[in-house]
């Protein structure tokens, strides 16, 4: 009887430990997901900023300015 009891306790203890490990793994995964999510958001944000910068650099007025500067440089002896 006592042996069975000890055996049950030991098995239950291991099972609980395993459950704790699974729970911890779950928490770690959620944490990683949250971190990744933030990174994705930050990257998207950086892309948005870049898009605007590219658009500003390629706007008709900016291009006209660049072309006129280039032309002036070529006209110089």
């Amino acid at each position, binding site marked *: 009887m*006592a042996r069975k*009891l*000890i055996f049950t*306790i030991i098995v239950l203890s291991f099972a609980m430990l395993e459950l704790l490990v699974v729970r911890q793994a779950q*928490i770690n995964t*959620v*944490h990683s997901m*949250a*971190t990744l999510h933030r990174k994705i958001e930050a990257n998207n*944000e950086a892309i*948005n*900023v870049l*898009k*605007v910068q590219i*658009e*500003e650099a*390629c*706007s*008709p*007025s900016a291009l006209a300015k660049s072309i006129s500067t280039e032309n002036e440089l070529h006209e110089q002896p």
Partner: protein
Amino acid sequence: MSNLKLTTRISHVAVLFICIVTLLMGSTLYKVFTLKTAPPIQLIKATPPATSFSKQLATRGQIIDRRGRLLAASRVGHKVFVDPALVEDFSAISFELGKALSIPPAKIEQQLRSTPGSRYVVLKKLVTPKEEKAIRALKHRCVGLEERLVREYPHGDIGGSLIGLVGTEHTGLAGFENRYNEKLTGTAGTFVRQRDRKRNTLWVSPSDYNPKTDGVDLQLSIDIVIQDIASSRLLEEVQRCNAGGGRIVVANPITGEILAMADILNPREGWSQQPDDPNRAMDVRLGRNRCVTDPYEPGSTFKPFIWSVATQLGKAEADEVLPTPLNGPYRTSFGRSIRDVHYYGPASWEKVLVKSMNSGMAIVSQRMTHKELQEAVSRFGFGESTHIGLGGETKGIVTTPANWSDYTQTSVSMGHEIAVTPLQMVQGFSAFARDGTVPQLQFVLATDDDVMFVRSALTSEIAAMTRKIMGKVMTEGTGQKSQSELYDLFGKSGTAQLPRADGKGYFEDRYIASFIAGAPINDPRLVILCVIDDPDKSIGHYGGVVAGPVVRDVMDQSLQYLGVPPSVDYLTTSSD
């Protein structure tokens, strides 16, 4: 016997072990329970909340032009706020914040002290990335960075009045930002996070997570390059003529898409926008878009509409010679005197349009019944909305049948006693560039699945004939100074007197000059209208002289940009 004793002892030890383990587990559970249900005050103070509510900002949809170029986009920026209740040393924090934000520390300190009891004092509504980094480095509990959406317009003022702008709450206030606000606006997301002591995310329950929905992107029919070409050329002409303002519309007559639209006002003494527009004084983008809202008298640019309908109704043949005067004004049957700029004597119905003869238009208009002329006006869409969907659109001014007199009949045939918006004008004129049908104008890019709503105004033969004769306007008539060296244009100039602000008649020597044209004549790709308000008469006031060159230049540059091969052998022309 000894074995029995040993077994008994082991049993006792086991029971003792079980008791100890049970006791330990029980006490642990009890502690957890008490910590959960009634934690000590010191513990509450020492640990941050285990859960936190977070809001995910939904990005507003982008506005892009027909080629996918970004016209308006949102990004996440930050504003800096301080919780004065948590500040221990106002002078020290003000000094540090002043250094990070480049604001005088004394000003910050005054701001923090001037709002006693407040827990939220915004120091700067939008910080630069460098400032944001400096603020984060401070690591003060009393200083916070709050996310906010920032709307960027990469092309600056180009097309600004069309695109509009958003307010502080990121909702559209004017232009397309306002018109499509619902579509562009997203829904913010929310979620509750379980956090550890270091505020790392431990858990997000699926039931506590409502993901954000970003706004839908909007693709316009506008082409930002053509928009730039049109608006900069218009501005140049308005300044050259010292005009009160100018308007230009560029459209694709086949699809009805508006490619560019600009409305410029020149703050010049002696000319003011009627009616007044105080919003425009605050921000041009908040003001009325006069291409949509403000009707003007089209003058002779209206003649092709009446000319084509009269021809279709058999009121005159193109080669029929009319009794137009050789010198002096023509007198109508009811005694009205009609003047021409030049007198040519008896002229063909075709020449009436080419030379823009008021007398010829008056003669043929008198052959039409009032109803026929009223229908001629309405079949091109004048007197009704274009249903383009922009706020404040007006229907123009068309005399009602009840008030329509013989005087109105002759006036309307010359483009007087009628007012149209530039949009209506472009829509109606598109019939000549097509098969006589009037397209539905649109600002949002048309897709192949879209059904094109059109109305029939003329037969295709009459539309083609009118177009051909308007081609002669450019080579032999009032549009000669606006003829392109690259493309065969068909068009018509117009010069109307400027109405007085008080509604009592017209100014004698102030005008509205306009010019409308399409090109290439054999396969029209664009229709352009330019209206110059009140140009300086000493510089020029005729539509063909003031507005025509704008249309020509914009047409040339836009068609070249669109890759349309020149229809005129310009190499031969230039070598001559």
